């Protein structure tokens, strides 16, 4: 295990240089994959055989889920309802975002977990939101928790409860958000993700409005990301795409992020969630 993580760190360092969007990649004949992509795929295959480093975070998350923690010294497993009953994690991830009457809101998995940490365990939201995503040698606790919860839905079908009018409304709002152009470059999500078969540099861009595109947009999240060797959630992906879109920063665990996740995940309804991912 130690060896694997070290490998991941080394590879991530080399990848960092090559995958930055504004750096030219090595020249290769047209139609072939560039060197970075090949290197990455090789490494991903190897990790899939030996075990995804994301599993370490899953284990960590399981401990967090089951232990009594926080100012109120309460365990999430004894207090947090992810939609299927207090403490039930199996199948919960693929059925979120969903409406939670106790919060009066539609919430995605990460937002719901944070809500539980605040309401049940007594953590302060502002503390959790200060550094919400993993960075150098740092993984937020809620990221490990999301990883644990998501892993308990592996090989189950996405089933966002779209029949619930609360969820449907948020879905429709999410559809507006992906089409909304603003900012200095006039970009919306759809500028990059609104048609089939498009690429930015060598990165394939899923068409979020189609079932297949939405599926590749939601599969593999949360995922262990080579670039930087970090465990990242779907919320992080949304935030980083807003960055590329030249938008201001979305607030952590906000309605806008839930709306995007509702739109994409529901578009993938009926398809299988394959579990924790390994991302480039």
């Amino acid at each position, binding site marked *: 295990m130690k060896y694997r993580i070290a490998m991941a760190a080394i590879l991530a360092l080399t990848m960092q240089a090559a995958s930055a*969007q*504004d*750096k*030219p*990649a090595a*020249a*290769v*004949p*047209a139609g*072939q994959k*560039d060197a970075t992509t090949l290197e990455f795929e090789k490494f991903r295959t190897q990790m899939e055989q030996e075990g995804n480093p994301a599993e370490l975070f899953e284990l960590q998350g399981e401990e967090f889920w089951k232990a009594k923690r926080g100012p109120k010294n309460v365990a999430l497993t004894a207090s947090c309802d992810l939609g299927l009953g207090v403490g039930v994690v199996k199948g919960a991830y693929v059925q979120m975002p969903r409406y939670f009457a106790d919060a009066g809101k539609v919430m995605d998995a990460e937002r719901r977990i944070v809500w539980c940490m605040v309401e049940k365990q007594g953590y302060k939201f502002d503390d959790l939101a200060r550094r919400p995503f993993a960075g150098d040698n740092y993984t937020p606790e809620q990221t490990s928790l999301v990883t644990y919860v998501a892993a308990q839905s592996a090989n189950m079908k996405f089933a966002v409860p779209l029949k619930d009018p609360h969820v449907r*409304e948020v879905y*429709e*709002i999410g*559809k*507006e*958000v992906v*089409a*909304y*152009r*603003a*900012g*200095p*470059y*006039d*970009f*919306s999500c759809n*500028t*990059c993700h609104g048609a089939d*078969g*498009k*690429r*930015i*540099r*060598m990165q394939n*861009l899923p068409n979020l409005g189609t079932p297949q595109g939405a599926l590749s947009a939601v599969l593999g999240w949360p995922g262990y990301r080579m670039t930087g060797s970090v465990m990242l959630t779907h919320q992080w992906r949304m935030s980083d795409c807003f*960055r*590329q879109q*030249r*938008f*201001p*920063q*979305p*607030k952590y665990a*906000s*309605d*806008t*992020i839930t*709306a995007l996740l509702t739109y994409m995940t529901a578009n993938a309804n009926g398809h299988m969630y394959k579990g924790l991912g390994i991302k480039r």
Partner: protein
Amino acid sequence: MNNISRISLLAAALLTLVAAAHADGDYRAQALSMMKQDFVTKGQASADRISEDGLQAICNRTGNKPPPEIAHRLEADQLAGVKLPADGKLLGDWKSGEQIAQSGRGFTWTDAPGLPVGGNCYNCHQIAPKETSFGTVGPSLFQFGKLRGNTAEMQKYVYSKIYNAKSFNLCSAMPRFGHIGALTEKQIKDLVGLLMDPESPVNK
């Protein structure tokens, strides 16, 4: 009145028309007020970027397909705002143009504020044959000058397209690099060089 406020006034007037014609506004209105609350300034990416300008508003409300009469009037207005170089020379240094086309730096909350920024061109376009890591959001520009002819007229078109892509296609996916002050006159000339100069690898 300067160009920008003239444009936004006209856009505002037209917007009322378009909004009336496409009144599916409920979810959109909710999305807008939600987003106004949910974004904060980070680095140079200020919270007010979430507001749409006149042109964005038209494109947002028509699914990027404004009625042709409106599109043509607004395109002409965008074109009127294109500032061509005073010295009349449009063909810059293609080697420098290649570097500008490669760079995607600029305007995100992790970029240092200020100029110069990159053109992002390879993110969306195939350009010189040596660079095989190119995007496909826009059409291939390989052999552009060769295919379209390196005429004064065509140079002017390319300069204007880069300056303000919306002058020719109101809801284009391509940013308005000169209009927003992202690329300087010299940078745009160099990009024209990259696409048009017979010596540029694009046209070899």
